[in-house]
């Protein structure tokens, strides 16, 4: 048996590993190399050392994109996780003790779960079209139509540089919440019911139950959610591309790094410079994930 194992493992892993190396690892490594060159995609690249990276930090569009990521990184996970936690608590535990003393969710929670999850299955392009109508800056827009009925002038959701980014973050929060509701619900159902019952018997209210019992026991799931959303915060490309005015506008107020990479490649033919942006993005994402894992590390609770 023993000697048969190696060929068996190699046989199974060889193809995926090779594919991964060729199509993922290889390009990553080459992106580092291209980042040190000036290359328009047609002519042979010219080595220019770290010049691209020096230029990056004088690039107004790029630095404002970085600033936007910082805001998104703070608000997107926070808003999504808080809302998702709240909903999943209500759906699973919020109903109080049921007939047999077990914890139940609020009424119709099964139906709500489906409703919450629905936005998750929509493609970003559809989301873009949908919110184009929701945010439409005239009275024919969904929100502005309602505001118009109570006499409020149309809000320029995507046209006002002060609120455009927040409007777009709002769409992503709306879309993501459902997934985390399901994720947290799964996490909560894996917490033994007797823990809740014991706490309830000791006189813990819903508030205490949530903060003293649910949250600590859900920590691992929460951490995963935070990292996922953090990485999503470094992307945002598609939604900005379809929804924002003038691609990343108005006045660069919604641009993100991926959009700047896209522009450098497909509008300016600056493949070396774009790769430099990609390298910066790579390190930012990596640093974020490592930091989050380290900062949120806690003793694992065994049931």
């Amino acid at each position, binding site marked *: 048996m023993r000697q048969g194992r190696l060929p068996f493992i190699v046989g199974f892993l060889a193809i995926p590993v090779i594919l991964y190396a*060729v*199509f*993922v690892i*290889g*390009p*990553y490594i*080459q*992106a580092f*190399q*291209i980042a040190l*060159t000036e*290359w*328009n*995609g*047609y*002519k*042979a*690249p010219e080595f220019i050392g770290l010049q691209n990276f020096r230029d990056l930090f004088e690039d107004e569009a790029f630095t404002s994109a970085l600033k936007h990521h910082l805001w998104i990184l703070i608000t997107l996970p926070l808003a999504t996780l808080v809302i998702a936690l709240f909903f999943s608590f209500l759906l699973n535990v919020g109903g109080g003790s049921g007939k047999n003393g077990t914890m139940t969710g609020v009424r119709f929670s099964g139906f709500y779960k489906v409703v919450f999850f629905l936005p998750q299955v929509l*493609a*970003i*392009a559809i989301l*873009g079209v949908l919110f184009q109508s929701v*945010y*439409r*800056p*005239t009275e024919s827009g969904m929100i502005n139509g309602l505001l118009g009925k109570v006499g409020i002038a*149309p809000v*320029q*959701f*995507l*046209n006002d*540089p002060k609120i455009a980014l927040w409007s777009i973050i709002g769409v992503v929060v709306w879309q993501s919440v459902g997934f985390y509701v399901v994720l947290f619900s799964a996490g909560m159902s894996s917490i033994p019911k007797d823990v809740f019952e014991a706490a309830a018997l000791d006189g813990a209210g819903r508030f205490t139950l949530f903060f003293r019992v649910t949250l600590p026991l859900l920590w691992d799931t929460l951490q995963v959610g935070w990292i996922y959303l953090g990485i999503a915060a470094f992307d945002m*490309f*598609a939604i900005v*591309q*379809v929804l924002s*005015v*003038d*691609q990343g*506008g*108005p*006045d*660069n107020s919604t641009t993100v790094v*991926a959009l700047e*990479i*896209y*522009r450098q*490649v*497909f*509008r*300016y*033919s600056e*493949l070396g410079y*774009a*790769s430099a942006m*990609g390298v910066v993005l790579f390190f930012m994402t990596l640093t974020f994930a490592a930091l989050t894992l380290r900062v949120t590390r806690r003793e694992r609770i065994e049931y």
Partner: protein
Amino acid sequence: MTEISGLDRRDVLKRIGLVAVAAPGLSVLSACATGGSDDTKGGDVSSSGDAKNPFGVDAAKPLNVVIFKGGLGDDYATQVHEPMYAKAYPGVKIKHEGIVEIGKALQPRFSSGTDIPDVVANAGTDLMDTGALAEAGHLQDLTALWDAPSLDDPAKKIRDAVLAGAPEAGLVAGKPFLMAYVSSTYGLWYDSELFKSKGWTPPKTFDEFKTLAETIKSEGITPFAYAGKNASYYAYWMILISAAKIGGNQVLIDIDNLKDGAWTSPAVEQAAAAWAEINTKYSDKSFEGLIHTEVQTQQNQGKIAFYPSGSWLENEQAASTPKTFKYGLAPTPSVTASDALPYEAIRVAAGEYYFVSAKGQNPSGGLEYFRQMLSKEGAKGFTEKSGSLTIVQGAAEGLTLSPGLSSVFAAQQAAGNNIVTTSLFENWYKELETELRRQTNNLMYGRSDAKKFCAAMQKAADKAKKDAGADLQTRTA
């Protein structure tokens, strides 16, 4: 320019993947993605002056034609130009490809040097950067083409059979590498039937514009609008045309040459101020969030009076234009009483670029294909199939023209030699162009003013000049 399309998610992912994954990834397989030779010398093709076959085309050599399959379709190639070429050189094999995403399909072919097409219609949102192609020596110099005898009159050079300035519209790094085939006329578009019924006439000065705009506004119609979301360049065209009318074409030539202080010249500032006033007072800020077709449809519904655009507009809107709506074209109003060009002056520009590959299998065949396109028969067929006029003079004779195209003719007649030149920096310096879109929206929606607009653009132009270094492009006329 006539084709603005959105991206779906898969597309977006594919494109972004191309940066980090695909482009370099290919190299692991093919050893060198960043390859491509440094040889910048293309094949030399000269014109022998022989009116039948000036470029010495060999009918045994196949011709590979790639046409952008967008707003103009590709019927004009498969049903008009390619049959003409095949008829002139019996037995020739033509390989036709109608492609939507030109860059994605062709960039790898040019980069690797294999399967390079001979004739390319480089257009659409995914067009290739011709500056980069020229640098790598992929573009065939078209001097021989422009000097070759015209198919219609062997005594005439092709250069003299097309609109004045058309060959120059295809200059890249000072060389005629591109053929701009379609002629577009720019100005303010309105519904001539609506204007007739209301007794309105297009304004000749900005003062008249403002007076008329008050009247239009009082009727509940938006006097002027453009789509800020994806077509802010329609607005900057108006600013640039007005700047040229105030200070003469030299203003635009200086801007293209990235001359110091070109953007801060009084003509540009006056033009910017005039248009900013119209848009902030007589439009609505909600238009910044709409795309061009939404605004154009609103005009078709009689909600907008004037819309800035080019002569493809009528064709683009054909499906949503009611029968009672008749497009009319008005020149941009004069800004000052001492404008260098008269009110009638209008921008007629050659656009929609085609090129022949210097490193393809059949550059002389490519040039001959262009010569067929530039005959009256080829141009007339193009107008019939695509609804757009070409740079070929007199080619539309005998065609029944739509209301919009007839008003284009009338406007061109009235303009005579007062033609506002086209701006080449839009294609030469894409980064500068992107900044102009941003600053145009800032100006037109009241976040900035003419002075700040000019200062911001001058800063961007200075940066473009620094970035270009030795690759600075110039034009004299």
